[in-house]
């Protein structure tokens, strides 16, 4: 996890509960702060044919102005479809799609105050960098002098001045990416859609472009909607993230929310790594409950919602929050099956009854943690608040 590069989060204008998809309309009292909003959005491809495929199932989402918002999910989850619907490249099947309060559901892409940065850049190969960047401005009918001035400013913004008169096919992926960004930003759209713009770059460049994108967003104040399947990218850049799976919106929240407070098994598993353990409610009292884990023992965890005794739930715990100790301690025990050295940490694969678990711990005796070898018996400890109870 590259948690270190997460920027301090700007305080959102409304509390994050209000943006939860299950409570539609709660942001409508502040229409100026909503950049994009979809309500009851459904998209079915090949309606009525045997190959009909529902790509988006009743999605509700509000994206605030000046926000770096990420749609995150595995490939084929519908995130790109949602982006294309916002851009006007795809028609929605039902529901509404508003951009700054205006219903754009039936508007063609050229009539929307939105620009898109495509996955493979999609630059005009027969035009120079300068002409590429000027294209959108010319389409808006801006006077020549203004077009030139804006193009110069954009060239500086993306550090592409010395390539201004080159054509895209002679440039590297990172340079093309910058030109694509400048081209999309030049007409000053109210909303910038980015469709996996970094996926074609190599790792080092991708990490560099992450920071550049983030600072570009802050400099321009334009709302960014960013699509990616890379959770690290999403956590590192976003103000808020929407996790999408199989056409459903799973969870919307800040990167910290998404990582620390997953609300479903899918989110817990998809974002970072999680140990997911099936458990049964043994006892519930107020905000705490006890859970029976088969062949393992009993654990305590705080609960956010009511649970019934005997109910099946899933417990999620991050590998770095699973504490291994010498076996004389009481409580759950496990056997080390494998040990992997990761440089900045050591990863232990464990077996406890029928459960396979993963624990990660900083190397050496840091914070009193000792090293173990395969075959060792260890006792399992959980950091306070580290066990998340998931009902679905």
């Amino acid at each position, binding site marked *: 996890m590259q948690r270190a590069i997460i920027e301090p989060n700007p305080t959102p204008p409304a509390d994050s509960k209000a943006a939860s998809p299950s409570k539609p309309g709660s942001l409508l009292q502040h229409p100026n702060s909503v950049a994009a909003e979809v309500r009851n959005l459904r998209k079915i491809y090949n309606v009525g044919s045997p190959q009909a495929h529902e790509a988006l199932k009743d999605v509700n989402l509000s994206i605030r102005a000046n926000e770096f918002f990420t749609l995150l999910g595995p490939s084929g989850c519908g995130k790109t479809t949602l982006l294309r619907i916002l*851009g*006007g*490249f795809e028609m929605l099947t039902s529901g509404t799609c508003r951009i700054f309060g205006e219903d754009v559901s039936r508007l*063609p*892409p*050229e*009539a929307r105050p*939105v*620009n*898109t940065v*495509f*996955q*493979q850049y*999609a*630059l*005009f*190969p*027969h035009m120079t960098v300068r002409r590429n960047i000027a*294209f*959108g401005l010319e*389409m*808006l009918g801006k006077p020549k002098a203004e077009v030139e001035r804006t193009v110069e400013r954009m060239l500086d913004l993306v550090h592409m001045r010395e390539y201004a008169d080159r*054509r895209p*096919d*002679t440039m590297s992926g990172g340079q093309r990416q910058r030109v694509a960004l400048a*081209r*999309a930003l030049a*007409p000053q759209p109210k909303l910038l859609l980015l469709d996996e713009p970094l996926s074609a770059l190599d790792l080092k460049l991708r990490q560099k472009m992450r920071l550049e994108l983030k600072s570009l967003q802050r400099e321009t104040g334009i709302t960014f909607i960013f699509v990616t399947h890379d959770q690290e990218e999403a956590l590192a850049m976003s103000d808020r993230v929407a996790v999408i799976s199989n056409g459903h919106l799973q969870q919307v929240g800040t990167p910290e929310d998404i990582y620390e407070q997953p609300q479903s098994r899918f989110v817990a598993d998809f974002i970072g790594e999680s140990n997911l353990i099936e458990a049964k409610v043994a006892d519930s009292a107020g905000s705490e409950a006890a859970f029976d884990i088969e062949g393992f023992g009993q654990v305590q965890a705080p609960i956010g919602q009511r649970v019934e005794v005997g109910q099946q739930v899933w417990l999620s715990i991050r590998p770095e929050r699973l504490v291994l100790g010498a076996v004389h301690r009481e409580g759950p025990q496990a056997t080390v099956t494998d040990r992997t050295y990761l440089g900045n940490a050591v990863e232990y694969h464990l077996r406890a009854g029928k459960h396979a678990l993963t624990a990660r711990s900083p190397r050496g005796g840091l914070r009193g943690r000792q090293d173990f070898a395969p075959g060792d018996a260890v006792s399992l400890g959980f950091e306070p608040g580290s066990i998340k109870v998931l009902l679905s």
Partner: protein
Amino acid sequence: MIERRFQLRWPLGASGSLLMLWALPVILLLAYVLPFAGVTLWSVTRPEPGFENYVRIVTGADFQAIFVRTAWVCLLSTAITIPIAYLLAYYWVMGSARRSRLIEICIFIPFWISVLVRAFGWVVILRNNGLASDVAAAFGLNGLSTGRNVWSVITGMVHFMVPFAILPMASVMRKIDSRVLLAALGLGCRPLGVFWRVYLPMSLPGVFSALAMTFIFSLGFFVTPMILGGGRVVLTAESVFVQMFQTANWGLGAALGVVLLVVVFAILWLSQRVMRIEQLMSR
């Protein structure tokens, strides 16, 4: 992995490979270079040694008329072929599955039918009192001469060349990334503007190669002008035939052939240069 590569060895062995390597130049030599050398020799030896034949071609009013007519017919038929082929190529590549299927059937079935059959087909349609003049009469255009003139020849040539012109244009069009077109739309360009500002410039290399191909093709047309022109629209290729097989003037026919070939090579060289400049421009 390396072992597998060795299994892919040429089945004829080293000497076999050498044989195959030489086969193509040998065929070229036997089928093209030697006969052409013979023809060139005829052109300066028959009926007597000297450049008499070339002088006649350059100075004779009859040959000048043929060259001018050939140039016009070829330019016109190319100019008509290219837009038709462009449209068809566009719909073939960009159109719905059904539409491109239809275009495939309509274009590529005639493609396999002999030139001769196609030329006679057009004769049936275009002859006086044929289908075309009946249709023209139905629209009140009586007495329109449709058979055996320059326009019949051009019609037949265009019909023949359109599929050939479609192929290079379609192959370039297929390579155009549809996301580039979407990007133009997204930047506020109307669909027609996307065509003029993005699609057309990006498809130009295909247009250039189709242009060169069509024009060079049209220079060599022989059967179509002969049948549809009925001896009234004699083009260079037909006049070679006339000189050789009707007036038995072998030397003059040979010289005409040589001139035609030189012109074709000149155009090829020129079009290569244009393409190279185009490539440099897109750098």
